[in-house]
């Protein structure tokens, strides 16, 4: 346990010293909400609705992109080499990849919650009557995203391939799920395609909590994300090979 905490603290320290990751998960994400909200404000009866829509949908986009944070802290060139030394130590394989998942999850989660904490009062937006549910639902999704990033690294053995694949898959899911604009108005085929994207389900869950004060989707999404997280961690255990670092 002591060595796990040592590795975890080092991973957190490395993430917190990475200006690109901090910027991408905080300032960039907040700016994206402001820009998209402003540009689309004409499409909504109330411009506040535009900001509300993009705050929720782009936070989901940011959460999924947490997979890239995880792959970065697992196999990025400058991090990979010292990780090799951890592999040679008695710490063991599980501690290495689980520490990366946990640290990436915490890093992204804290930054995303901070964005919400800033945007809500500044733009007069809402996370619903019980914001705790909104924040609580973010946790398993952030964790699953981090586990997904590490899982892809374990399979493809390379950060570049993982990032390219993940960004393509995530962007596609987000476009289909209506993160940037709703597909529902583009005909029945587009609406059906939208429904098969998990992002759509997440949108529904978070919008229900924040706009309708409804927890109807909270349970299923929370449980599915939790199960997915567990499966992905198990998958990492199955596919993690120390020789990938050699």
């Amino acid at each position, binding site marked *: 346990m002591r*060595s796990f905490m040592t590795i975890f603290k080092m991973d957190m320290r490395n993430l917190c010293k990475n200006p690109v990751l901090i910027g991408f998960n905080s300032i960039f994400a907040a700016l994206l909400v402001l820009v998209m909200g402003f540009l689309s404000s004409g499409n909504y009866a109330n411009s506040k609705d535009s900001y509300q829509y993009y705050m929720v949908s782009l936070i989901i986009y940011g959460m999924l992109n947490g997979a890239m944070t995880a792959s970065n802290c697992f196999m990025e060139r400058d991090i990979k*080499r010292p990780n*090799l*030394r951890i592999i040679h130590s008695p710490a*063991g394989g599980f501690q290495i990849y689980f520490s990366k998942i946990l640290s990436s999850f915490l890093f992204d989660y804290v930054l995303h919650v901070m964005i919400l904490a800033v945007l809500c009062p500044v733009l007069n937006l809402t996370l619903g009557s019980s914001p705790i549910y909104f924040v609580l639902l973010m946790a398993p999704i952030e964790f699953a995203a981090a586990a997904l990033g590490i899982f892809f690294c374990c399979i493809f053995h390379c950060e570049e391939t993982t990032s390219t694949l993940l960004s393509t898959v995530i962007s596609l899911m987000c476009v289909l799920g209506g993160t940037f604009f709703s597909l529902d108005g583009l005909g029945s085929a587009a609406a059906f395609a939208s429904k098969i994207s998990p992002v759509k389900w997440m949108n529904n869950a978070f919008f229900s909590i924040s706009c309708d004060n409804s927890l109807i989707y909270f349970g299923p999404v929370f449980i599915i994300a939790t199960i997915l997280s567990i499966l992905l961690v198990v998958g990492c255990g199955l596919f993690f090979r120390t*020789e990938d*670092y*050699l």
Partner: protein
Amino acid sequence: MESLMTVKNLTKSFKENTVLKHISFEVYRGEVLCILGPNGAGKSTTINILTAALGSDSGEILFRGNKISKQLRAYKKTVGIVPQEIALYEELSAESNLRFFTSLYGLHGSKLEEAVTQALVFAGLDDRRKDKVKTFSGGMKRRLNIACAIAHHPELVIMDEPTVGIDPQSRNHILDSIKKLRDQGMTVIYTTHYMEEVEVISSRIIIMDHGAIIAEGTKESLKEDIENEKRYTIEVEENGKIAHDEFFAIEGIKTVNIVGNTIEIATLKGIENLDRIIALLCDGGEKIRNITSEAASLETVFLKMTGRKLRD
């Protein structure tokens, strides 16, 4: 000599490519065992299997008589590894790097601090302990790379080409350090391309090629094995007065190679015929400008055993 590690029949293939073919050897306590070989010989694969970072297809490794697979955690605690690449956090100080990596071996508190300071002194970096690694020269990084591997006082240190791309001063420092480690009773397994390093530090040498061990022994015994001939290089003022074949009339001469004004002669060891070679040249009217005789170096041994063909 007491055996610390026994490697038995290791084999390893990557898809169709067999990189290790049933290699077996012993590592004795307190020795510096150098593993030499051209690129692709299987040195790094062997090292990676010894560090337990890579599995073998068959064979076993015994450490103090027990299989390392059965006591992996305990084995890793007693081994220090210097990887070929510099495996350090560039954004952290030398001290923080050492503290982090050493703590993974179970050291903490005052023992950890003591080990960190000792390792910094060992690497000659005590005065730079607070500086970030990214401000260090290549040689300093290499020294710290080694310090991180020995700070927890391992019984066995495995070094994979630890002196690649550094200045002679840092190389000397590292070689002196390895001798110090040996004197302290540590066992070192060391791979390198540099023959002069092997000459200086090795207790024993293993030469590998094409995934197999082709020679093993002390540097003296390896030289002895191939040293069944002596080489003379003779410079003359104006060559061509003596025919190539005339040299073979002298007893013991194996090969004669004439290039410009230089005559290279290989002759059987133990047959004293230099006076007759000189007499032949003088009688033929040649004026001798210089004669050198060459004893076998480790490089000669290495090239003789692995061939001169370029490797990828």
